[in-house]
């Protein structure tokens, strides 16, 4: 459960204050698939960083799973990121010379939980992300863009986080490959185990989510259910990644 209460974020000092987010209030329930949509400069990335605990709000309160995160130390925030949040970036951010498995297992080395079966968990995550087993020993710089993003999704899933945060996950992919990645988000949503927050500036991408929050100039301008979720399976029948 993500609760944002009057989140305001400003940068700069006194005269040159730039307000990036203004009084943003919203609640995202467990298992929701939400797209945060807005043009560049709208503050959606800052919002994602705050939700992902990479940044802290100037004012307002952020309650994650019933706990206010404002007073947490850096080490605590790192642990919460590790256990509760899975990041998926536009630029994938894989370790280029490490194997797929090694990339996926990376978050587990920073975890405190028992990791007796790391390999097993990585394999489960890779299957869930839909990457074929024949690629698992490849180095990540030998993969295609779509394959890399699937590795990134698997890496986000491997700690079984409550929240998946995807920042323009299709931004570096062609439409067909992007659709495959979006489809995998929908599949995850249908399983209902993860809250998925998708940041995008494209209406088309946002329409894959079940709820669309539009943001402009640091304010929420629209928050609506997306009744007729776009189904990618029908329009892109055979893309192999």
């Amino acid at each position, binding site marked *: 459960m993500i609760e944002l209460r009057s989140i305001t974020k400003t940068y700069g000092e006194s005269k040159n204050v730039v307000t990036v987010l203004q009084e943003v209030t919203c609640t995202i329930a467990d298992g929701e698939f939400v797209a945060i949509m807005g043009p560049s400069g709208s503050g959606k990335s800052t919002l994602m960083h705050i939700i992902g605990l990479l940044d802290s709000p100037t004012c307002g309160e952020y309650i994650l799973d019933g706990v206010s995160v404002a007073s947490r130390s*850096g*080490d605590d925030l*790192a*642990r919460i990121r590790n256990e509760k949040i899975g990041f998926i970036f536009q*630029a994938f*951010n894989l370790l280029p010379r490490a194997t797929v498995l090694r990339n996926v297992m990376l978050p587990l080395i920073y975890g405190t939980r028992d990791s007796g079966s790391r390999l097993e968990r990585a394999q489960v995550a890779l299957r869930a992300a839909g990457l074929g087993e024949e690629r698992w020993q490849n180095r990540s710089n030998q993969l295609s863009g779509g394959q890399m993003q699937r590795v990134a999704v698997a890496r986000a899933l491997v700690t079984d986080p409550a929240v998946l945060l995807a920042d323009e996950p299709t931004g570096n992919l062609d439409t067909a490959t992007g659709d495959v990645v979006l489809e995998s988000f929908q599949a995850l949503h249908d399983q209902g185990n993860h809250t998925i927050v998708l940041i995008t500036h494209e209406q088309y991408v946002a329409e894959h989510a079940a709820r669309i929050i539009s943001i402009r100039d640091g304010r929420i301008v629209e928050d609506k259910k997306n009744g007729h979720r776009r189904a990618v399976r029908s329009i892109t029948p055979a893309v192999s990644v």
Partner: protein
Amino acid sequence: MRTFDLFSESCRALTINKIRSGLTMLGIVIGIASVITMISIGQGAQTMIQSSIEGLGSNLLTVMPGVIQPGRGIVSSGRGAAQTLKNSDIEALKGIPGVAAVSPESSRRFQIVASTGQNTNSTVIGVLPAYEHVRSVFSEQGSFVADAHNRSMSRVAVLGPTVAQDLFGDANPIDKTVRINKVNFKVIGVLKAKGTAGFFNPDDTVFVPLSTMQKILAGADFLSLIALSVEDKDQMPRVQEDAHITLAQEHGTSLESPDFSIVSQADILGALTQITVVFTLFLASIAGISLLVGGIGIMNMMLTTVTERTREIGLRKAIGARNRDIIAQFLLESVLLTVIGGLIGVAIGIAAALVVRVGFNIAAEVSLFSILLAGGVSTTIGVLFGFYPAWRAARLNPIEALRYE
């Protein structure tokens, strides 16, 4: 973060760019290897000097006429110039408890001519039989000067190996005649070679009975020096003290301004050891500079690495790495470089010391101390020069780091 994971991550990072890691490590390898080699050469020289001094006779006190001027050392003591040591001092010194033997010497340089026609200029020392034991000399051929020779003022001589070689070549000198200061002496023995020791070559000497030296060759009853051997090393300071008091009484001088000096082997050893210690420090500090340069190389590489891997650092922080995890990883990378470099350096240093030992005949020895020192120094360098880059890495803002191009 578990220790195993930490090592696994750091090793992986180092093996990604093997050439760069290797070249950086080379700086440490060279530094450590040269420090180890230099220290081993210095210690080898020290051991050699020590053993050659001890070869002159252990537990030895030397009484010399005149006073050793402070600061002028033992070299310029003007020994032989002052004529204050007399035969009566010998008996007085023998009475001191703890003294094992007393060996007076009266020496002077003379031209020595052999029956072969060869001649040489060498030191002739008048001695008692005690000399053989006190100075640890051994006969190669024939015998040493005996009591009977002294009583009868015999004109017999024992040749040092250098003199024997100069005068007689490979021929047997025993029973041959040599002329010392125009007096004929019969050769009764030749000594074994001892090798040079400090400033004095014991092989380039001729020994005659003390009485013969004083009455016939020198024409004076003075002694050049008196060597005392002490029964036990622990008694050296006390015997030195007692000898000082005894001789001052004998000579009728005050204790504060005696007309003689007593030097122990420890004094001579101390002076020479000091020289070699300074010498070793000098060599090691030159080698230490290369170690410092190696450390700066490590820091340079680590700073480059941190910049190159900015996005990786951002990612690691986003997925839950704490600052201390980042610091630990980068610090371990630099420490691994220096420790592995240090180990290779130690191996090369040991090999180089062996080469010096075999090739240059210096008893270079690699001590456990220098290996431990090298290990400690290389680890310290890794930590010192690795900390700043690691701290820079940990300090990165993950949001900016993730966007870094």
